[in-house]
Protein backbone atom coordinates (compact mmCIF):
# COMPACT_ATOMS: atom_id res chain seq x y z
CA UNK A 1 0.00 0.00 0.00
CA UNK A 2 1.81 3.13 -1.12
CA UNK A 3 2.10 5.95 1.39
CA UNK A 4 2.17 8.59 -1.31
CA UNK A 5 0.68 8.03 -4.76
CA UNK A 6 0.83 10.48 -7.63
CA UNK A 7 -1.35 9.70 -10.63
CA UNK A 8 -0.72 11.65 -13.86
CA UNK A 9 -0.12 14.90 -12.01
CA UNK A 10 -0.10 18.05 -14.12
CA UNK A 11 0.81 21.60 -13.14
CA UNK A 12 1.16 24.75 -15.17
CA UNK A 13 2.31 28.25 -14.32
CA UNK A 14 0.58 30.51 -16.80
CA UNK A 15 1.45 29.11 -20.23
CA UNK A 16 4.29 27.02 -18.95
CA UNK A 17 3.39 23.41 -18.20
CA UNK A 18 5.89 22.45 -15.52
CA UNK A 19 4.57 18.98 -14.70
CA UNK A 20 3.33 17.04 -17.71
CA UNK A 21 1.81 13.96 -16.13
CA UNK A 22 3.84 12.52 -13.29
CA UNK A 23 3.01 9.10 -11.88
CA UNK A 24 4.88 7.90 -8.83
CA UNK A 25 4.28 5.58 -5.89
CA UNK A 26 6.17 5.81 -2.65
CA UNK A 27 6.02 3.00 -0.11
CA UNK A 28 6.31 3.56 3.64
CA UNK A 29 9.95 3.69 4.71
CA UNK A 30 11.24 4.36 1.22
CA UNK A 31 13.90 6.96 0.63
CA UNK A 32 13.56 8.56 -2.77
CA UNK A 33 15.92 11.04 -4.38
CA UNK A 34 14.57 13.29 -7.11
CA UNK A 35 17.24 14.62 -9.42
CA UNK A 36 17.21 16.64 -12.60
CA UNK A 37 18.15 19.93 -14.21
CA UNK A 38 16.71 23.16 -12.87
CA UNK A 39 13.35 23.73 -14.49
CA UNK A 40 12.62 20.01 -14.72
CA UNK A 41 9.84 20.36 -12.16
CA UNK A 42 11.48 18.67 -9.16
CA UNK A 43 10.70 21.31 -6.54
CA UNK A 44 7.25 21.91 -7.98
CA UNK A 45 6.50 18.22 -7.64
CA UNK A 46 7.49 18.25 -4.00
CA UNK A 47 5.47 21.36 -3.30
CA UNK A 48 2.40 19.80 -4.90
CA UNK A 49 2.58 16.85 -2.54
CA UNK A 50 2.07 18.98 0.56
CA UNK A 51 -0.28 21.38 -1.14
CA UNK A 52 1.92 24.46 -1.38
CA UNK A 53 1.07 24.33 -5.08
CA UNK A 54 -2.32 23.36 -6.49
CA UNK A 55 -2.26 20.75 -9.23
CA UNK A 56 -4.14 21.30 -12.48
CA UNK A 57 -4.69 17.69 -13.38
CA UNK A 58 -4.33 14.17 -12.02
CA UNK A 59 -4.54 13.14 -8.38
CA UNK A 60 -2.36 12.89 -5.33
CA UNK A 61 -3.13 10.51 -2.47
CA UNK A 62 -1.32 10.63 0.82
CA UNK A 63 -2.02 7.88 3.37
CA UNK A 64 -5.25 6.96 1.56
CA UNK A 65 -6.61 10.46 1.62
CA UNK A 66 -6.91 12.36 -1.63
CA UNK A 67 -5.47 15.85 -1.71
CA UNK A 68 -8.11 18.49 -1.77
CA UNK A 69 -7.67 22.21 -2.08
CA UNK A 70 -9.69 23.33 0.91
CA UNK A 71 -7.95 24.66 3.99
CA UNK A 72 -9.13 21.93 6.32
CA UNK A 73 -7.95 19.03 4.20
CA UNK A 74 -4.64 20.71 3.48
CA UNK A 75 -3.99 21.20 7.15
CA UNK A 76 -4.87 17.59 7.88
CA UNK A 77 -2.42 16.57 5.16
CA UNK A 78 0.36 18.70 6.56
CA UNK A 79 0.02 16.97 9.90
CA UNK A 80 1.16 13.84 8.11
CA UNK A 81 3.72 15.21 5.69
CA UNK A 82 6.43 17.63 6.79
CA UNK A 83 8.66 19.82 4.66
CA UNK A 84 12.20 21.12 5.00
CA UNK A 85 13.13 24.12 2.91
CA UNK A 86 16.31 25.20 1.17
CA UNK A 87 16.26 28.51 3.06
CA UNK A 88 15.46 26.88 6.44
CA UNK A 89 12.70 29.45 7.15
CA UNK A 90 13.14 29.37 10.91
CA UNK A 91 11.05 31.90 12.79
CA UNK A 92 13.46 34.68 13.79
CA UNK A 93 11.44 36.00 16.71
CA UNK A 94 11.33 32.63 18.52
CA UNK A 95 14.11 30.71 20.20
CA UNK A 96 15.15 27.37 18.79
CA UNK A 97 13.07 25.53 21.35
CA UNK A 98 10.02 27.69 20.68
CA UNK A 99 10.45 27.19 16.94
CA UNK A 100 10.12 23.46 17.43
CA UNK A 101 7.31 23.74 19.99
CA UNK A 102 5.12 26.21 18.14
CA UNK A 103 3.18 23.98 15.82
CA UNK A 104 2.53 21.06 18.21
CA UNK A 105 1.15 23.58 20.68
CA UNK A 106 -0.91 25.62 18.26
CA UNK A 107 -1.98 23.11 15.60
CA UNK A 108 -2.21 19.99 17.73
CA UNK A 109 -3.05 21.63 21.03
CA UNK A 110 -0.29 19.80 22.86
CA UNK A 111 0.19 21.27 26.36
CA UNK A 112 3.31 23.38 26.76
CA UNK A 113 5.17 20.96 29.03
CA UNK A 114 4.72 18.05 26.69
CA UNK A 115 5.62 20.17 23.70
CA UNK A 116 8.82 21.26 25.43
CA UNK A 117 9.74 17.66 26.20
CA UNK A 118 9.07 16.65 22.61
CA UNK A 119 11.11 19.59 21.38
CA UNK A 120 14.06 18.63 23.51
CA UNK A 121 13.80 15.05 22.30
CA UNK A 122 13.76 16.12 18.65
CA UNK A 123 16.62 18.53 19.14
CA UNK A 124 18.60 15.78 20.82
CA UNK A 125 17.93 13.61 17.81
CA UNK A 126 19.52 16.19 15.54
CA UNK A 127 22.32 16.87 18.01
CA UNK A 128 21.25 20.36 19.13
CA UNK A 129 19.69 19.85 22.56
CA UNK A 130 22.14 22.34 24.03
CA UNK A 131 20.83 25.09 21.76
CA UNK A 132 17.29 24.97 23.11
CA UNK A 133 17.33 28.59 24.28
CA UNK A 134 19.45 30.00 21.48
CA UNK A 135 18.14 32.34 18.81
CA UNK A 136 18.15 31.27 15.14
CA UNK A 137 20.49 34.06 14.10
CA UNK A 138 23.09 32.77 16.55
CA UNK A 139 23.37 29.45 14.71
CA UNK A 140 25.30 28.38 11.65
CA UNK A 141 23.47 27.39 8.49
CA UNK A 142 23.93 23.71 9.18
CA UNK A 143 22.58 24.09 12.71
CA UNK A 144 19.60 26.10 11.50
CA UNK A 145 18.73 23.42 8.98
CA UNK A 146 18.97 20.75 11.65
CA UNK A 147 16.60 22.79 13.81
CA UNK A 148 14.27 22.95 10.82
CA UNK A 149 14.41 19.16 10.62
CA UNK A 150 13.66 18.87 14.35
CA UNK A 151 10.78 21.27 13.88
CA UNK A 152 9.27 19.11 11.17
CA UNK A 153 9.88 15.93 13.16
CA UNK A 154 8.05 17.35 16.18
CA UNK A 155 4.84 16.98 14.20
CA UNK A 156 5.49 13.22 14.00
CA UNK A 157 4.97 13.08 10.25
CA UNK A 158 4.62 9.95 8.17
CA UNK A 159 6.91 11.38 5.51
CA UNK A 160 9.33 14.24 5.03
CA UNK A 161 9.75 16.28 1.89
CA UNK A 162 13.24 17.77 1.58
CA UNK A 163 13.60 20.53 -0.99
CA UNK A 164 17.32 20.90 -1.73
CA UNK A 165 18.01 21.19 1.95
CA UNK A 166 21.78 21.41 1.62
CA UNK A 167 21.97 23.69 -1.42
CA UNK A 168 22.15 26.88 0.62
CA UNK A 169 24.85 25.58 2.94
CA UNK A 170 28.57 26.12 2.90
CA UNK A 171 30.26 22.87 1.87
CA UNK A 172 31.70 22.09 5.28
CA UNK A 173 28.23 22.28 6.84
CA UNK A 174 26.53 19.94 4.38
CA UNK A 175 27.71 16.76 6.06
CA UNK A 176 26.21 17.46 9.47
CA UNK A 177 22.80 17.81 7.86
CA UNK A 178 23.21 14.75 5.66
CA UNK A 179 24.25 12.75 8.73
CA UNK A 180 20.93 13.56 10.35
CA UNK A 181 19.04 12.57 7.22
CA UNK A 182 20.97 9.35 7.05
CA UNK A 183 19.86 8.50 10.57
CA UNK A 184 16.25 9.34 9.78
CA UNK A 185 16.40 7.00 6.82
CA UNK A 186 17.88 4.28 8.97
CA UNK A 187 15.07 4.77 11.48
CA UNK A 188 12.54 4.06 8.78
CA UNK A 189 11.26 7.54 7.91
CA UNK A 190 9.77 7.93 4.44
CA UNK A 191 11.77 10.59 2.62
CA UNK A 192 11.41 12.37 -0.69
CA UNK A 193 14.50 14.45 -1.37
CA UNK A 194 15.16 16.84 -4.18
CA UNK A 195 18.91 16.94 -4.12
CA UNK A 196 22.11 17.55 -6.01
CA UNK A 197 24.12 15.41 -3.62
CA UNK A 198 24.61 12.45 -5.93
CA UNK A 199 26.95 10.56 -3.66
CA UNK A 200 24.48 10.78 -0.82
CA UNK A 201 21.64 9.71 -3.10
CA UNK A 202 23.61 6.70 -4.16
CA UNK A 203 24.43 5.64 -0.61
CA UNK A 204 21.17 6.23 1.16
CA UNK A 205 18.29 6.10 -1.29
CA UNK A 206 16.16 3.14 -2.28
CA UNK A 207 15.15 4.66 -5.56
CA UNK A 208 16.20 7.59 -7.68
CA UNK A 209 13.76 9.54 -9.84
CA UNK A 210 15.27 11.46 -12.74
CA UNK A 211 12.97 14.23 -13.91
CA UNK A 212 13.28 15.83 -17.29
CA UNK A 213 11.01 18.49 -18.76
CA UNK A 214 8.18 17.84 -16.36
CA UNK A 215 8.10 14.04 -16.60
CA UNK A 216 9.62 11.12 -14.79
CA UNK A 217 12.25 10.25 -17.29
CA UNK A 218 13.94 7.38 -15.51
CA UNK A 219 13.34 5.69 -12.20
CA UNK A 220 15.11 2.89 -10.43
CA UNK A 221 17.59 1.87 -7.74
CA UNK A 222 20.60 4.20 -7.56
CA UNK A 223 23.07 1.55 -8.61
CA UNK A 224 21.23 0.99 -11.84
CA UNK A 225 20.65 4.63 -12.66
CA UNK A 226 24.07 5.89 -11.86
CA UNK A 227 26.10 3.09 -13.40
CA UNK A 228 23.93 2.37 -16.41
CA UNK A 229 21.76 5.35 -17.30
CA UNK A 230 19.33 4.21 -19.95
CA UNK A 231 18.50 7.49 -21.62
CA UNK A 232 20.83 10.04 -23.24
CA UNK A 233 19.31 12.83 -21.13
CA UNK A 234 20.30 11.13 -17.90
CA UNK A 235 23.69 10.33 -19.28
CA UNK A 236 24.19 13.95 -20.16
CA UNK A 237 22.92 15.07 -16.76
CA UNK A 238 25.27 12.74 -14.92
CA UNK A 239 28.12 13.76 -17.17
CA UNK A 240 27.62 17.20 -15.71
CA UNK A 241 28.26 15.93 -12.21
CA UNK A 242 31.52 14.37 -11.00
CA UNK A 243 29.91 11.05 -10.14
CA UNK A 244 30.95 9.88 -13.56
CA UNK A 245 34.49 10.90 -12.76
CA UNK A 246 34.97 8.74 -9.70
CA UNK A 247 33.67 5.48 -11.07
Amino acid at each position, binding site marked *: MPLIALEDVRKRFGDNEVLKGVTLRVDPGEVIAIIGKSGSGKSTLLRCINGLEQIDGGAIMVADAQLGDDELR*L*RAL*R*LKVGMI*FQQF*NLFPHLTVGRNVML*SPMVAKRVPERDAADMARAMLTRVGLAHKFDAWPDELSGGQQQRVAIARALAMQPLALLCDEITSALDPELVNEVLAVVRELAADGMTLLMVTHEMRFAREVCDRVVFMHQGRVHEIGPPDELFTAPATPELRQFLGMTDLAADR
Partner: protein
Amino acid sequence: MAYQYDFASVFEYTPVLLKGIGVTIKLIAFGAVAGVAIGIACAWVRTQGPTWLRAPVSAYVELIRNTPFLIQLFFVFFGLPSLGIQLGEMQAACLAMALNLGAYSTEIIRAGIDATPRGQYEAGASLALSRIQVFRHIVLMPALMRIWPALSSQIVIVMLGSAVCSQIAAEDLTFAANFIQSRNFRAFEVYLVTTGIYLALAVLLRQILRMTGRRLFRKAAR
Protein backbone atom coordinates in the same frame (compact mmCIF):
# COMPACT_ATOMS: atom_id res chain seq x y z
CA MET B 1 9.73 99.38 27.83
CA ALA B 2 11.03 95.85 28.11
CA TYR B 3 8.60 93.09 28.92
CA GLN B 4 8.92 91.88 32.48
CA TYR B 5 9.04 88.12 32.55
CA ASP B 6 7.33 86.49 35.47
CA PHE B 7 7.70 82.72 35.46
CA ALA B 8 7.06 82.44 39.15
CA SER B 9 3.40 83.18 38.61
CA VAL B 10 3.24 80.17 36.34
CA PHE B 11 4.67 77.81 38.88
CA GLU B 12 2.19 78.99 41.47
CA TYR B 13 -0.20 76.87 39.47
CA THR B 14 1.94 73.74 39.49
CA PRO B 15 -0.87 71.49 40.79
CA VAL B 16 -2.99 72.58 37.82
CA LEU B 17 -0.13 71.76 35.47
CA LEU B 18 0.38 68.38 37.08
CA LYS B 19 -3.27 67.52 36.71
CA GLY B 20 -3.10 68.53 33.07
CA ILE B 21 -0.04 66.35 32.53
CA GLY B 22 -1.89 63.46 34.12
CA VAL B 23 -4.81 63.83 31.73
CA THR B 24 -2.51 64.10 28.71
CA ILE B 25 -0.79 60.91 29.81
CA LYS B 26 -4.14 59.19 30.22
CA LEU B 27 -5.17 60.27 26.75
CA ILE B 28 -2.06 58.99 25.03
CA ALA B 29 -1.94 55.80 27.08
CA PHE B 30 -5.44 54.87 26.00
CA GLY B 31 -4.97 56.23 22.51
CA ALA B 32 -1.74 54.32 21.95
CA VAL B 33 -2.98 50.94 23.20
CA ALA B 34 -6.38 51.16 21.54
CA GLY B 35 -4.93 52.72 18.40
CA VAL B 36 -2.31 50.02 17.90
CA ALA B 37 -4.91 47.34 18.54
CA ILE B 38 -7.15 48.87 15.89
CA GLY B 39 -4.14 49.13 13.61
CA ILE B 40 -3.27 45.46 13.97
CA ALA B 41 -6.86 44.39 13.34
CA CYS B 42 -7.28 46.63 10.30
CA ALA B 43 -3.87 45.72 8.90
CA TRP B 44 -4.88 42.07 9.17
CA VAL B 45 -8.10 42.80 7.28
CA ARG B 46 -6.22 44.64 4.55
CA THR B 47 -3.63 41.88 4.06
CA GLN B 48 -5.42 38.62 4.82
CA GLY B 49 -8.87 39.40 5.99
CA PRO B 50 -12.23 38.82 4.34
CA THR B 51 -12.67 40.83 1.15
CA TRP B 52 -16.01 42.27 2.14
CA LEU B 53 -14.36 44.01 5.11
CA ARG B 54 -11.59 45.57 3.05
CA ALA B 55 -13.58 48.39 1.50
CA PRO B 56 -14.97 49.71 4.82
CA VAL B 57 -11.52 49.52 6.42
CA SER B 58 -9.93 51.36 3.49
CA ALA B 59 -12.64 54.00 3.68
CA TYR B 60 -11.99 54.46 7.40
CA VAL B 61 -8.22 54.71 6.92
CA GLU B 62 -8.40 57.15 4.02
CA LEU B 63 -11.01 59.31 5.71
CA ILE B 64 -9.00 59.71 8.91
CA ARG B 65 -5.72 60.26 7.13
CA ASN B 66 -7.11 62.99 4.89
CA THR B 67 -9.01 65.07 7.43
CA PRO B 68 -7.70 67.16 10.35
CA PHE B 69 -7.76 65.66 13.84
CA LEU B 70 -9.60 68.76 15.07
CA ILE B 71 -12.53 68.06 12.77
CA GLN B 72 -12.54 64.38 13.75
CA LEU B 73 -12.63 65.41 17.41
CA PHE B 74 -15.44 67.90 16.88
CA PHE B 75 -17.40 65.37 14.88
CA VAL B 76 -17.12 62.75 17.63
CA PHE B 77 -17.98 65.19 20.43
CA PHE B 78 -20.48 67.56 18.80
CA GLY B 79 -21.72 65.55 15.86
CA LEU B 80 -22.41 62.09 17.27
CA PRO B 81 -25.10 63.28 19.74
CA SER B 82 -27.30 63.86 16.66
CA LEU B 83 -27.15 60.08 16.24
CA GLY B 84 -28.03 59.60 19.88
CA ILE B 85 -24.45 58.93 20.99
CA GLN B 86 -23.61 61.36 23.78
CA LEU B 87 -20.02 61.16 24.98
CA GLY B 88 -18.24 63.00 27.77
CA GLU B 89 -15.11 65.04 26.95
CA MET B 90 -12.63 62.40 28.04
CA GLN B 91 -14.53 59.64 26.29
CA ALA B 92 -14.79 61.62 23.08
CA ALA B 93 -11.12 62.64 23.23
CA CYS B 94 -9.96 59.07 23.89
CA LEU B 95 -12.14 57.71 21.10
CA ALA B 96 -10.98 60.31 18.61
CA MET B 97 -7.34 59.67 19.47
CA ALA B 98 -7.73 55.92 19.18
CA LEU B 99 -9.46 56.22 15.82
CA ASN B 100 -6.83 58.65 14.60
CA LEU B 101 -3.83 56.59 15.62
CA GLY B 102 -5.64 53.44 14.47
CA ALA B 103 -5.82 54.66 10.89
CA TYR B 104 -2.16 55.69 10.72
CA SER B 105 -1.04 52.50 12.47
CA THR B 106 -2.96 50.42 9.96
CA GLU B 107 -0.80 51.64 7.12
CA ILE B 108 2.43 51.42 9.07
CA ILE B 109 1.75 47.89 10.32
CA ARG B 110 0.53 46.81 6.90
CA ALA B 111 3.89 47.79 5.44
CA GLY B 112 5.55 45.62 8.06
CA ILE B 113 3.32 42.67 7.23
CA ASP B 114 3.91 43.07 3.50
CA ALA B 115 7.63 42.77 4.12
CA THR B 116 7.27 39.25 5.53
CA PRO B 117 9.40 36.83 3.50
CA ARG B 118 7.32 34.27 1.65
CA GLY B 119 9.28 31.42 3.20
CA GLN B 120 7.82 32.25 6.60
CA TYR B 121 4.29 31.70 5.28
CA GLU B 122 5.34 28.46 3.61
CA ALA B 123 7.06 27.15 6.71
CA GLY B 124 4.00 27.96 8.78
CA ALA B 125 1.67 26.35 6.28
CA SER B 126 3.78 23.21 6.04
CA LEU B 127 3.58 22.93 9.82
CA ALA B 128 -0.22 22.61 9.48
CA LEU B 129 -0.98 26.04 10.93
CA SER B 130 -4.11 27.84 9.75
CA ARG B 131 -3.88 31.29 8.18
CA ILE B 132 -4.93 33.02 11.36
CA GLN B 133 -2.46 30.98 13.38
CA VAL B 134 0.30 31.87 10.94
CA PHE B 135 -0.61 35.53 11.26
CA ARG B 136 -0.76 35.48 15.02
CA HIS B 137 2.30 33.40 15.83
CA ILE B 138 4.66 33.89 12.91
CA VAL B 139 3.90 37.07 10.99
CA LEU B 140 2.73 39.64 13.53
CA MET B 141 5.69 39.94 15.89
CA PRO B 142 8.41 40.27 13.25
CA ALA B 143 6.17 42.75 11.39
CA LEU B 144 5.83 44.90 14.50
CA MET B 145 9.57 44.61 15.08
CA ARG B 146 10.22 45.90 11.60
CA ILE B 147 8.06 48.98 11.85
CA TRP B 148 8.48 49.79 15.53
CA PRO B 149 10.48 53.01 14.93
CA ALA B 150 7.88 54.35 12.49
CA LEU B 151 5.04 53.36 14.80
CA SER B 152 6.76 54.99 17.77
CA SER B 153 7.15 58.22 15.81
CA GLN B 154 3.47 58.18 14.98
CA ILE B 155 2.52 57.66 18.63
CA VAL B 156 4.62 60.67 19.63
CA ILE B 157 2.98 62.73 16.87
CA VAL B 158 -0.46 61.78 18.16
CA MET B 159 0.58 62.65 21.72
CA LEU B 160 1.60 66.11 20.58
CA GLY B 161 -1.64 66.37 18.64
CA SER B 162 -3.60 65.64 21.82
CA ALA B 163 -3.14 69.30 22.70
CA VAL B 164 -6.17 69.89 20.51
CA CYS B 165 -8.39 67.94 22.91
CA SER B 166 -8.41 71.01 25.12
CA GLN B 167 -10.82 72.46 22.59
CA ILE B 168 -13.61 70.21 23.79
CA ALA B 169 -12.70 71.02 27.38
CA ALA B 170 -10.80 67.80 28.09
CA GLU B 171 -8.64 68.98 30.98
CA ASP B 172 -5.26 68.15 29.49
CA LEU B 173 -2.03 70.10 29.70
CA THR B 174 -3.10 72.67 27.10
CA PHE B 175 -6.37 73.18 28.92
CA ALA B 176 -4.39 73.76 32.10
CA ALA B 177 -2.20 76.28 30.29
CA ASN B 178 -5.22 78.16 28.96
CA PHE B 179 -6.69 78.19 32.44
CA ILE B 180 -3.53 79.53 34.04
CA GLN B 181 -2.97 82.28 31.52
CA SER B 182 -6.55 83.42 31.90
CA ARG B 183 -5.79 83.92 35.58
CA ASN B 184 -2.32 85.42 35.60
CA PHE B 185 -2.36 87.03 32.16
CA ARG B 186 1.15 85.70 31.54
CA ALA B 187 0.38 84.01 28.21
CA PHE B 188 3.95 83.96 26.95
CA GLU B 189 5.47 82.47 30.09
CA VAL B 190 2.68 79.95 30.50
CA TYR B 191 2.85 78.70 26.95
CA LEU B 192 6.62 78.64 27.02
CA VAL B 193 6.63 76.47 30.12
CA THR B 194 3.92 74.23 28.69
CA THR B 195 5.83 73.84 25.44
CA GLY B 196 8.85 72.79 27.47
CA ILE B 197 6.76 70.22 29.31
CA TYR B 198 5.44 68.81 26.04
CA LEU B 199 8.98 68.57 24.76
CA ALA B 200 9.99 66.65 27.86
CA LEU B 201 6.95 64.38 27.52
CA ALA B 202 7.84 63.67 23.91
CA VAL B 203 11.40 62.74 24.82
CA LEU B 204 10.15 60.57 27.66
CA LEU B 205 7.57 58.87 25.46
CA ARG B 206 10.17 58.10 22.83
CA GLN B 207 12.39 56.52 25.46
CA ILE B 208 9.54 54.44 26.87
CA LEU B 209 8.63 53.22 23.39
CA ARG B 210 12.23 52.34 22.62
CA MET B 211 12.53 50.32 25.80
CA THR B 212 9.19 48.68 25.20
CA GLY B 213 10.41 47.66 21.77
CA ARG B 214 13.53 46.13 23.15
CA ARG B 215 11.74 44.16 25.84
CA LEU B 216 8.85 43.10 23.65
CA PHE B 217 10.89 41.82 20.76
CA ARG B 218 13.74 40.01 22.31
CA LYS B 219 11.40 38.40 24.77
CA ALA B 220 8.96 37.42 22.04
CA ALA B 221 9.71 33.83 22.99
CA ARG B 222 7.60 34.67 26.03
